[in-house]
């Protein structure tokens, strides 16, 4: 499917700040059968935008604004062609990916509760286990915006029993890893045909690695596999590896964040 994304992030400050450095992972990936047809990034104040590719092919853009300012805006527009499901390109994990996607990470620590939760749903076959876990996370957690924040870890989400897409993904990743199934976090967008295109378009889900067949991509928030409505921006061990924007600045101002995302089929 051909999708157009419009993503505007505005940071406002109650006093002047300076020397602001911002990093962004906003360009749709060219991987997994997905193609980024166009990408345009504009910032205010304007700065020279620099770029690098991370090892896992995440595209990172960054810029700095040294002069004092009270508002910083990042606006990206992209067009992307999505496949009907993830088309896996690697059938064997590198030793580092094998380690990273099995070991506990910042937001997916290893704990007894997750282990107990995950063990309940083990099947004979890794693929069946992953689907059983997805269903378990989907039914066990209640989707409640505001119940958690971006720093909530998987074990706390499980205790709380509620969260948002990021939390669903983290609990499922932690559960897969407990069962020896490599799992990674996916940051991206979701085109929801039922909505007007403005509702919760930023999204997060996960990939699980099935020995012998490769990565499959699952969304525990909706209890389904990745479809052509999903746009992938970046993959990592968990959220902390791939925040869409991250920044530091000089000043004691209070920051207010406003994000507007829309996804439309073309």
């Amino acid at each position, binding site marked *: 499917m051909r999708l157009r994304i419009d993503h505007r992030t505005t940071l406002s400050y109650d006093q002047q700040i300076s020397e602001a450095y911002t990093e962004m992972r906003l360009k749709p990936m060219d991987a997994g059968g997905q193609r980024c047809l166009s990408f345009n990034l504009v910032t205010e104040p304007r700065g020279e935008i620099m770029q690098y590719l991370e*090892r896992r092919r995440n595209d990172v853009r960054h810029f*700095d604004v*040294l002069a004092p300012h009270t508002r910083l805006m990042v606006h990206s527009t992209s067009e992307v062609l999505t496949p009907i499901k993830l088309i896996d390109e690697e059938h064997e994990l590198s030793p580092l990916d094998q*380690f990273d996607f099995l070991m506990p990470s910042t937001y997916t620590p290893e704990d007894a509760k997750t282990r107990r939760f995950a063990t309940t749903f083990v099947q004979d076959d890794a693929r069946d286990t992953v689907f059983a876990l997805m269903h378990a996370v989907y039914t066990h957690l209640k989707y409640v915006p505001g119940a958690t924040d971006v720093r909530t870890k998987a074990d706390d989400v499980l205790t709380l029993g509620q969260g948002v897409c990021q939390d669903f993904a983290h609990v499922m990743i932690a559960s897969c890893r407990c069962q020896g199934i490599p799992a990674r976090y996916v940051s991206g967008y979701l085109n929801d045909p039922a909505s007007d295109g403005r509702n919760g378009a930023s999204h997060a889900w996960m990939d699980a690695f099935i020995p012998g067949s490769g990565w499959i991509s699952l969304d525990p928030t909706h209890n389904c596999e990745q479809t052509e409505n999903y746009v992938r921006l970046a993959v990592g061990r968990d959220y902390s590896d791939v925040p869409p924007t*991250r*920044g530091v600045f000089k000043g004691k101002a209070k920051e207010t964040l406003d994000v507007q995302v829309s996804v439309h089929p073309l």
Partner: protein
Amino acid sequence: MMTTEAMNRSSTQPIVNGDYDIGAFFDEMFESPGVPRPHYKILLDHLTTLNAGTFEERRRAADISFLYQGITFTVYGQQEGIERIFPFDLIPRVIPHAEWDILERGLSQRVTALNHFLHDVYHEQRIIAEKRIPARLVFGAKNFRREMIDIDVPRSVYAHITGTDLIRDEHGNYLVLEDNLRSPSGVSYMLENRQAMKRTFARLFENYGIMPIEHYPQELLSTLRSVAPHGDPDATVVLLTPGVYNSAYFEHSFLARQMGIEIVEGRDLVTHDNHIYMRTTRGLKQVDVIYRRVDDDFLDPLAYRQDSLIGVPGLINAYRAGNVTLANAIGTGVADDKAIYAYVPDMIHYYLGEEPILQNVPTFLAENDLDRSYILANLDKLVVKSVNESGGYGMLVGPHATTEECERFREKIQAYPRDFIAQPTISLSRHPTYLNGELSGCHIDLRPYVLAGETVKLVPGGLTRVALRRGSLVVNSSQGGGSKDTWVLYD
């Protein structure tokens, strides 16, 4: 009065007397009681002419000059901000040329292999793919930095300055105790000790052929310049310090002054469009090489700890773009992890196809089940070390530990086996050291400084550290150790 009389009597007594006890150790000066090793003979003859009174006077003069120059260090884990003089012992350690020759070749070989290893783990990871070192040891190391993967650094050198700690066992064999590839400190003491000795024993320097070390700052500067981005020979080099409260601040300012470069704190630098600039009274000036004495975690709040106030935001991006060189590189700590240390001899075989010239201390990894059982059964005999700590912190010296201390380590080892290694207690060699009016045997080690840039080089000697607490095996300056001048002799 009794005390005055006692003092007078002792001050006229020679400092070299029949009471010196070699003990069951390798003594650096004496091969048997009263018989000096050949390279110590001139020194011993001179010391024999000194009595405690004259020696004490010279010692006080040396101590005062240290205090005036501010050569002090801060002790962590004690009351904040305690400044002490780094205790200096006037009896020098002497190393014959042939012995140094082996050390120099052995250390160059070791640092070359370690730099190959760093390049490999941040590129192809051949050594892991070929299962010469367990993947989990490398990837699980606290200082393995994923963002360094595929970044090319000038001349493929990561550890530009390495301080490797050498000890000698009861037979006098040199062994590598650990490598320090992050920000090894202490080189300023090596240089200052030499100055103090030249002032105190001017005549001895005329009689002994002692190799100079005074050119170290210039060698360091040329090493740093040789790894500048794009091979720029006129590169601007600065030294980045955490600030005046850091325990090694004296050394930072000393080295910057000696090299004639600016000493800066994070707030003095600014990143713009992937280049690093220094704020000067005449505006921004581009910086090419940063000799940084700030840990990885605190270098850049954009990339690492956001709470760091001593870093430079955007520095890692400028580094990745190749516009600035960091010495040492980010992520060198993976190679001085104490569990990975155990594999350095294998690295020498693997990357250089050579036999290691210097041996490691036998090391047990708590991570391995067999090793762990052995460690837990022999806690009272072993030295247990935490893999990521340095400076003698987080360490258990079994034979000197209480039962409670042993039990605390037992629990920690069982809970976090990857974090601990153990080594047999080595009877460190001893060196005559002036304590309370006479010479006593005290344990020593040696930290030579290896510079790697266009070439690998060392100045002869290094910092000899001495355990001034009687019987203590810990020679770190932060643990009550002192130091001596180290004389490498000409052939």
